[in-house]
Every structure is written in C-alpha cells, then in structure tokens.
C-alpha cells in the first residue's frame, strides 16, 4: 500500500538530482556555493553600507537615522581634511611604489643570473613580502626607536645626537615609505625576474654577434620583455599601497599630528573612533571607486598580455 508513495518520493528525489545534473546547469551549480558565500558575507554588507552612506547613522546612538541624500559625499569632497589625507596617501604611494620599482628592478638584475647558492639568497630577499604587516610594523618601530633603534644609533655615530625620524612630518612619511618599500620591493623583483627569464636566448646571441653595447642590449632586448610586467607591478602595488592601513597604524599611528594619516586610516578613525558610521561608509565608497577603476585597468592589461602570448 505504501509502495506507490515511496516510489514517487524516490523518483522525485532522483528527478531533482537529474535536473541539477543536466549539463546546462553544471556551471551555475558549481559556482553557486561560492557566489552565495560572497553575496552573504561581502556583497550584502557592501550594499548595506552603500545605503548607510546616504543617511546620518551613528553606530553608537539609538536615534533613528535621517535620510541625507548626497550630503555625506558633498561634505567629504568639500572638506579640506579629506583632501589633505588624499595628498598624504598620494605622497606615500608615489614614494613607496617609486622606491619599490627602483629597488625591485635592481634586485632582479642581481638575481637574473644563475650562480651558486642563488636559491637560498633569493629566499632571504623574498621573505619580507610574505611577512605579516604586524611583524614588519614592529621591526620598523624598533628600528626607528630614538633610544633603542639601530637607525638612531647609526645617525648618532655622526651627529652625536639620538635621531627620531618620526618626530617631523616629512621624516614620518619617509619612515612609512621605507618600511612599505622594504616589504614590497621583492614583489616587483619577482615580476621583473619573470620578464627577464622570458627573453629568448637567440636574441642575446644575435646581439653578441652584432657586438651590441650593454645599454643597447638592455634597451632593445631586455626592456621590451619586462616593460609589460613593470607596468603591471606598478598598478598592482599602487592599488595595494593606496589602501595602506596596517603599517601606518602600527608605526606612526597617523602622527605626528595627522602627517601620516592615509585615507584608509582616516576612514577607520571616522568609523570606529568618532562613530560617524555613515560618513565613514561614504568615505569607504570614495576609496572603493578609485580601487575599482585601477583594478579594471590592471585586469585589462593582464588580459592583453595573456592574449599576446597565445
């Protein structure tokens, strides 16, 4: 008597499985768990804070938020303090990414050849970018310390006075730039190395036959092969440095005054110290917009590079 019911239940269970297993649903089925997770944990919260950015919500108050329209955005863009933070961030990005390109390129040239112990030595140079921002922040805090730090001791050998790099606004910017560039020059090195290794052998052999000078060889053979990767390194590092938060938070905490306060640190202050949640959300969206533009540019260049190779 119960057989038919059980039977239909089983077929319908199988039916669902078969429906799911259809070839045209394979892609969506496999992607679904990932998309759902990202929707739940990333996209929805982002939409929520996008909504919040149009109100005057404060996370530490009970008052019903009032709809403010674009007021937060207008206020932020008209605020000199925000522009100052943009300038500070720009200085750090320019200084650090510039330094990374120079140091990274130099390191790559040093490690482009094969030599004994290369793998071990390369390891020493590559380690910094695998470290936690917390470790790097603390290394440099100790390194810069006016009484205990190696830097102060080294300067004192010449001047006789302890040296506090973080006491002046310009010095503090340098302190961040050096720490960040130290950590990420290996990244640039890695990309440049990949470019150097991809130069076909016969080009160098031909250059040798032609007795081309070192500079000429570099300009006409080496550089064309690495310039694409250098551009990618530049963009990738610009995106990442633009978001700089941890190193500033740990080394200078934005000081002296607000001299090293980047926009990410400023947004954090707005949101978690002043509890101006809506304004912080609007600020976050300004940062988001810039990052999206840079990321699309990066991916466009990556795609171009990959299609050239095929």
């Amino acid at each position, binding site marked *: 008597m119960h057989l038919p019911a059980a039977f239909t239940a089983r077929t319908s269970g199988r039916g669902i499985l078969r429906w799911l297993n259809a070839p045209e649903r394979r892609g969506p089925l496999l992607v679904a768990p990932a998309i759902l997770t*990202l929707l739940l944990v990333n996209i929805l919260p982002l939409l929520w804070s996008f909504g919040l950015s149009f109100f005057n919500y404060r996370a530490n108050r009970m008052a019903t938020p009032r709809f403010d329209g674009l007021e937060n955005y207008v206020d932020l863009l008209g605020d000199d303090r925000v522009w100052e933070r943009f300038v500070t961030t720009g200085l750090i990005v320019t200084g650090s990414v510039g330094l990374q390109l120079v140091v990274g390129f130099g390191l790559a040239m040093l490690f482009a050849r094969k030599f004994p112990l290369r793998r071990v030595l390369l390891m*020493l140079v590559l380690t910094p970018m695998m470290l936690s921002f917390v470790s790097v922040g603390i290394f440099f805090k100790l390194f810069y310390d006016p009484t205990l730090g190696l830097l102060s001791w080294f300067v004192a050998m010449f001047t006789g006075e302890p040296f506090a790099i973080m006491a002046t606004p310009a010095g503090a910017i340098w302190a961040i730039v050096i720490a960040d560039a130290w950590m990420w020059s290996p990244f640039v090195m890695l990309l440049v190395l990949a470019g150097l290794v*991809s130069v076909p052998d016969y080009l160098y052999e031909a250059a040798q036959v032609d007795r081309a000078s070192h500079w000429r060889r570099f300009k006409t053979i080496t550089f064309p092969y690495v310039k694409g990767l250098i551009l990618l390194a530049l963009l990738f590092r610009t995106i990442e440095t633009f978001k700089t938060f941890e190193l500033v938070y740990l080394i200078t905490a934005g000081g002296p005054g607000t001299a090293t306060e980047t926009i990410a640190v400023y947004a954090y202050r707005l949101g978690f110290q002043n509890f101006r949640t809506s304004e912080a959300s609007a600020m976050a969206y300004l940062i988001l917009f810039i990052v999206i533009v840079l990321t699309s540019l990066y991916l466009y260049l990556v795609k171009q590079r990959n299609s050239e190779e095929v």
Partner: protein
Amino acid sequence: MSFRKHNEGGWGQTLVSGLVAVIYFAPVFWMILTAFKTRQDALAIPPKLIFTPTLENFRSVFVEVTSSGEVVSTGAWLYFANSAFIAGASVLLALIIGTLAAYAFSRYPLKGNDTYLFIILTTRMLPPIVVIIPIFLLFRITGLSGTYIGIILLYTSFNLPFSIWMMKSFFDDLDREVEDSARMDGSSDWAVFGRIVLPQVLAGLAATLVFALILTWNEFIFALLLTGPETRTVPVAIASTIGGSIGVDWGKLSAMITLFLIPVFIVTFALQNQLLRGVTFGTIRK
C-alpha cells in the same frame, strides 16, 4: 625558472648578491637575534652582535611568574591555537568551494563569466576598511562578533576570491584534449573532474592551500575588530603589546614574532616557484 648559459655568474656573483641579500634581510635577522637576548643585551647601546643567547624570552611568552612566585600560563598558546584553527578551517572551506567554482569558470563559462570573475576579484582588492564597517554592524546584530563561526565565515569569503583565481589559473593551464578524449570514451563529467583533472592540479591545490594559510595567518584588521578575548589571533595579540616604546619588553615581543614567523619561512621556501602566481592572485603565471 630556466636560465641561459651566457648569463651564468660564478662565486663572484654569489658574493655580491649575498651581501645585498644579507643587508636586505637584516631587519628580520635583528628581530630574531633580539629574541635570544637578555633584557640588558636587548637594550644595549651600541647594539650587541655577540652575546650569550638565552631562551628566557621564549619561555616568558608562554609562562610568567606571579608576585607570589607561582608559575602561570600567559594564555599565549591560545592565540597560536586560535590562529592555526581559524586559518585552517576557513582556508579548507574556501578551497573546496573555490575549486569547484574555479573549475566551472574555466570549463563551463557562464553568461557574463568575466564580469563574475571581475566582481569576485574586486571583493578581494577592496580596502578592508570598506567591508569592515557593514560587517562590524552585521556581526553586532547577529551576535557573531567574537565567535569562531563569525571570523571563520569572514575569512572563508576573504579566501574565496584568491582560491578561485588561483585554481582557475591552474585549470586554464591544463591540456584539455585528455579530458575530451576521456569524455569520448564515455566517462561522466564528474569522473573526468575527479580522476583526470583533479590529480593534475594537486600541486596547484597544495600551493593555493598554503598560500591562503599564510595570508590568513598574517591577517590583522579583521581580526583586530572582529575577534574577542576567546578568539584572538596572534597578530592582534602582538599588536596589543606595543602602546608606547617605553615599557615594551622587546625580547619577549621578538620571541613571539619569531615563533609566529616560523611557518611563514617554511612556506616561503617550499613555495618559491609558485610565489609569483600567488602574490598576483593567479593573474600572472610566468
């Protein structure tokens, strides 16, 4: 990586590169040395390169002596256990979900495949500060703040974009003719995935796994704002010990960082050939 003969340097090159490498590595080396110094040696001016090493700092990371002479745990083992557990659980989850999705993005492109991939990468390129405000509010409402489930869920989604892009780059590298011929011979799509595709990307899977583990092990901002006393990870514990430079026990702090770095060293060494792919989220392979 392959090299050309014309470009080979000898021991002279080793000397020059070695000198540069040692100088470059000096900040890390200095911190490790400090971990083995007594308090006086750590504070000595001029700095001491030669000293009698002590393990006292490593001991003091885990146990301390109270004023009544009792030896009690500092609780630091909990932070290390938390870091390992939270990173392990979230990376495993992200890798399973991410590998399936990456395979689909590579073999069964959806309508708007590239748009999906772009949005997925963007969620990873976002400054954490953008995501953290709403997440913080969400966690406060749902009571997930300070719980293991909350931070694991967050780190799973944090590792997903990375896993998807990395694994897609490995799947894209494979030769598809093998799969097609297996399909011709009557293997189901699932059998092709399990018996032919997966075994070929095991190395890639391993690289993605350890890379994601390190990224999560190192993560600071989310952990700072979303873990509680019970779920605190090592980076937060380390950062909380530096208020001002006065009163910081540099020896103990260095010992804690040194312990924290050990897994990172091992992984960096083991992964040397996959580093490029890893640091660029699989967008640059060679």
